[in-house]
């Protein structure tokens, strides 16, 4: 009879525990990382009565998590990719807005600037027109600067994001290491039964970590988990943590990189390609820097073409025009890891050949090598880096102060800082060179049929280039200029004082032609400056500044669109991964309600069995009492 009591007792205990587990499941229905728990029941060893084995009750063999490591891993990977895209999207959509805002954007400012030149050409001596041109040039430079500083501002957001992510990664890694220790001890103490709540916490931390940066994990036999980041750099090994640090970029101290050591020698940024951190690095190297470079390329093209035109015309005071725009030249930075203190200097020699790429110049055992900093592809170049024979590639020339030590690296950024430094160098509207440098005229009383063409300035530095000069024909076959008589050939160039001009046709003796500086009402240079709007300047003269701005908008827009599309697709994939995990580990309240009822009924039945045992015993006792009394 005692067996009936003991069987019922085991059942009551087991079902009470099952009800507790179910209640715990319900209590944690909304706890992140919680995996629903299942009570495993098993029948206890039977007792042999006579020839038969009789059951002795039920025992709890374990409380296990409904958990699938592979589904969890899949979700973590998908989360990593999603947070990478989400963080990248934050920046591409900001760039999209910065560059794409048509009102107040670079393209509008460019149009206003060229139109202002056209207005000056219509009335070259008008001060209001010139003032409007000065204002539009300033507005244009301002637009370039603002756009550039907004993009630079994104870089500081990225630095802040990297620092925050690294801090969070370190904190999570530390928690994982300490959980590892507790889990190992807890499992040992519970005879191999893992402490489920701690496993849940650790899984939640790993999931958190994979949203920050893609990680991979391995599980040791004692229950501890090892976490690896990037290309397999260990972050957590059992109870040990490798702390990540932020270090300045070897070429650009204003950009933070992630390293596994404090000296910055082990920068692992390039191997972190997923998670929020991966998104931040991608935004910097694939979105912000290329956009800044492209914008800089436009600024260089604009400044160079505008300045060349200014330099070839005369301002209202009759002097050659000074540069209209000023901007910073290319930057050539030595790596902070370089063995010696060789410096590099870069200058732009050919705007048409210029690209928006950055270059890495390295001294290898095989000599100098130049590669595209973004893709690593080799870039062909000429020269050896000496002042006499500079390295020339893609319109940039680089001079090294000495032969660098093997292993030294230099980052060449031809256009990165151009847009941010674009400024108007002129202050006075009269300094705009609207007039052509030289104008020619035939003498009013010429009787021959010869005509004079336009004069070309060959050397603007010649002191006498603007000196008015008369070419007098002493006979139809000879002319005097600058005090010397020459034989005349129709169409041949006549050069003096740094200019040249051609006279064609048959002059008569006594005919004269004059070459003199452009008058204030001469608008030839202003016409040429306005015509630059549609002139090819970039990419070997095939793309105008405005066309380049259009290309920039299209490429920024395409990138943002592509990231948006990928992000949406990844969100769908991630939802699927979440569903899979939830369908395994999530708490379904209806299911728990059913379980609760089931366990309640089982408990009630067991209690009833106990009561029946009691009644049976009492009946037995009563019958004994009845017999003997």
């Amino acid at each position: 009879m005692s067996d009936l009591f003991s069987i019922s007792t085991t059942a009551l205990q087991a079902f009470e525990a099952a009800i507790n587990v179910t209640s715990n499941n319900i209590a944690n229905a909304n706890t992140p990382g919680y995996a629903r728990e299942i009570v495993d029941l098993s029948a206890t060893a039977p007792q042999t009565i006579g020839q038969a084995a009789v059951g002795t009750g039920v025992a709890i063999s374990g409380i296990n998590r409904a958990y699938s490591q592979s589904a969890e891993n899949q979700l973590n990977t998908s989360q990593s990719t999603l947070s990478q895209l989400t963080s990248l999207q934050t920046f591409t959509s900001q760039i999209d807005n910065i560059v794409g805002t048509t009102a107040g954007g670079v393209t509008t400012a460019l149009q206003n600037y060229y139109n202002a030149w056209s207005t000056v050409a219509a009335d070259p001596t008008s001060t209001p027109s010139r003032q409007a041109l000065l204002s539009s040039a300033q507005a244009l430079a301002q637009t370039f600067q603002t756009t550039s500083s907004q993009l630079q501002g994104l870089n500081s957001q990225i630095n802040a994001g990297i620092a925050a992510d690294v801090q969070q990664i370190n904190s999570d890694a530390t928690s994982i290491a300490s959980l590892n220790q507790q889990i190992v001890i807890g499992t040992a103490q519970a005879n191999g039964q893992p402490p489920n709540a701690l496993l849940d916490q650790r899984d939640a931390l790993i999931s958190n970590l994979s949203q920050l940066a893609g990680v991979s994990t391995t599980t040791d036999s004692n229950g501890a988990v090892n976490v690896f980041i990037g290309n397999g750099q260990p972050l957590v090994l059992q109870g040990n943590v490798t702390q990540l640090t932020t270090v300045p970029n070897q070429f650009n101290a204003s950009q933070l990189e992630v390293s596994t050591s404090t000296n910055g020698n082990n920068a692992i940024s390039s191997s972190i390609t997923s998670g929020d951190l991966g998104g931040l690095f991608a935004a910097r190297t694939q979105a912000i820097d290329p956009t800044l470079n492209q914008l800089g390329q436009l600024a260089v093209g604009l400044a160079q073409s505008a300045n060349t035109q200014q330099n070839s015309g005369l301002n209202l005071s009759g002097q050659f025009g000074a540069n209209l725009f000023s901007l910073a030249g290319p930057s050539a930075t030595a790596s902070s890891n370089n063995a010696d203190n060789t410096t590099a200097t870069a200058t732009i020699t050919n705007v048409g050949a210029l690209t928006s790429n950055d270059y890495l110049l390295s001294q290898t055992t095989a000599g100098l090598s130049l590669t595209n900093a973004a893709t690593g592809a080799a870039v062909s170049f000429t020269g050896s880096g000496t002042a006499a024979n500079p390295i020339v590639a893609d319109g940039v020339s680089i001079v090294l102060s000495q032969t660098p030590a093997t292993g030294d690296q230099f980052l060449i950024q031809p256009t990165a800082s151009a847009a941010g430094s674009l400024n108007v160098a002129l202050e006075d509207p009269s300094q705009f060179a609207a007039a052509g440098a030289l104008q020619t005229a035939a003498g009013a009383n010429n009787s021959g049929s010869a005509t004079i063409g336009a004069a070309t300035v060959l050397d603007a530095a010649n002191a006498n280039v603007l000196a008015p000069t008369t070419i007098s024909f002493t006979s139809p076959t000879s002319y005097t200029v600058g005090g010397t008589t020459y034989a005349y050939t129709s169409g041949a160039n006549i050069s003096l004082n740094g200019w040249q001009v051609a006279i064609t046709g048959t002059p008569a003796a006594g005919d004269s032609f004059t070459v003199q500086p452009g008058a204030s009402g001469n608008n030839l240079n202003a016409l040429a400056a306005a015509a630059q709007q549609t002139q090819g300047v970039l990419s070997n003269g095939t793309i105008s500044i405005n066309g380049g701005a259009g290309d920039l908008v299209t490429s920024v827009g395409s990138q943002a669109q592509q990231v948006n599309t990928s992000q949406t697709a990844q969100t769908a994939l991630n939802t699927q991964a979440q569903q899979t995990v939830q369908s395994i580990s999530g708490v379904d309240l209806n299911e728990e309600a059913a379980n609760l009822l089931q366990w309640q009924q089982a408990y009630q039945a067991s209690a009833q069995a106990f009561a029946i045992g009691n009644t049976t015993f009492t009946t037995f006792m009563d019958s004994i009492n009845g017999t003997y009394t």
Partner: protein
Amino acid sequence: MRVTQSLEQSQFIAAIDQLQSTISQNENEVSSGLAFTAPSQDPTAAGEVINLDQALSQSQQYTSNANSAQTSLQTENTALTQLQNQLQSLSSLALEANSGTESSQNLSAIAAQITQIQSSLLGLANTQDGNGNYIFAGYATQTQPFALTASGASYAGDQGQPQIQVAAGQTIAIGDNGSAVFNEIKTGNGTFTVTAAGGNTGTGVVGASTVADPSAVTGTDYTIKFSNPTTYQVLDPNNAVVAAGTYTSGQTIAFGGLQVTLSGAPAAGDTFAVAPSTNQSIFTTVQNLVTALQAGTGTPALQTQLSNAVNAALGNIDQAITHTSTVEASVGGRLNAVTTQLSVASSQQTQLQKSVSSLQGLDYASAITTLDSENTQLSAAMQAYTLTQGLSLFKYIG
């Protein structure tokens, strides 16, 4: 598949978020009237819109340039019309002086009137446009181009001709330099001149001269020389005789493709120089006329000199009238070109605006329909959520 309540909840929220963000974007489109507000929504169209905007802005600038060119050309046209009128008056006054019946006093009065005309001519030559620029100064628009001198007028401008861009690849000259308008006027009949020598003692007067045979014109100088009042010889620069004959008053003398009419009674030894036309300023022509008129008609020799001077002046004034008409015609042609360009630009701008709005403009009908269907979708989703949220086994237990 097991569906858990927390997943259901988070998926519902994600779906609602997604719908709300689409609705907000569509609202943005409807309120701005733009099919896309960021390049990422349509990168290719965004790039194209920039190119079209540039073309549009450039075309609008060309329109503004063309309007400015039109104003300049109209100012020049008015000046040239007035110049024509003044030259006509000058011509009538010269004819009046040439009637042979005017007293020295009358001639002085005519000279005074001509001097008046001379100063109006100077005023016209120094015409300024609305911006204070001299329109007949070439590029030297800030310099007063003409000033009277003893022999006519000096020109301080240059031979530049400012151009204005009125279309891609098309510039229009918005002025003509003063030298071309006022100074480069051919003398005589435009091909050659006949001038009585200053020392002539007879009363031979140079009449009409014409080119009879353009192919025979050599362009060299000739001298018509009278060995006696009835015999003349035409000599070339080497003193070779190219023609000779007996002279009667009003006779036409022909040589080298040219025809010269002389009248009056030349004296023995009188000569007449025949030379190719050169450029002479209208101011020099007027000044010469005034000088001749002021000399008076006291003697037959003076009368002859006056007749010769007035005849020469009449020829030069005719040339000036023809020359001015040519310039006026060219200005008129340019005005026409500008007007044509303005209408071309206007239709081009309409076309460009159409293209921009077809790329960037919103199709309201479809946008609003979409918005409406998204709203319906959102409210349906919300309703579905409240329905499923009511379903829980717990409601039925106990």
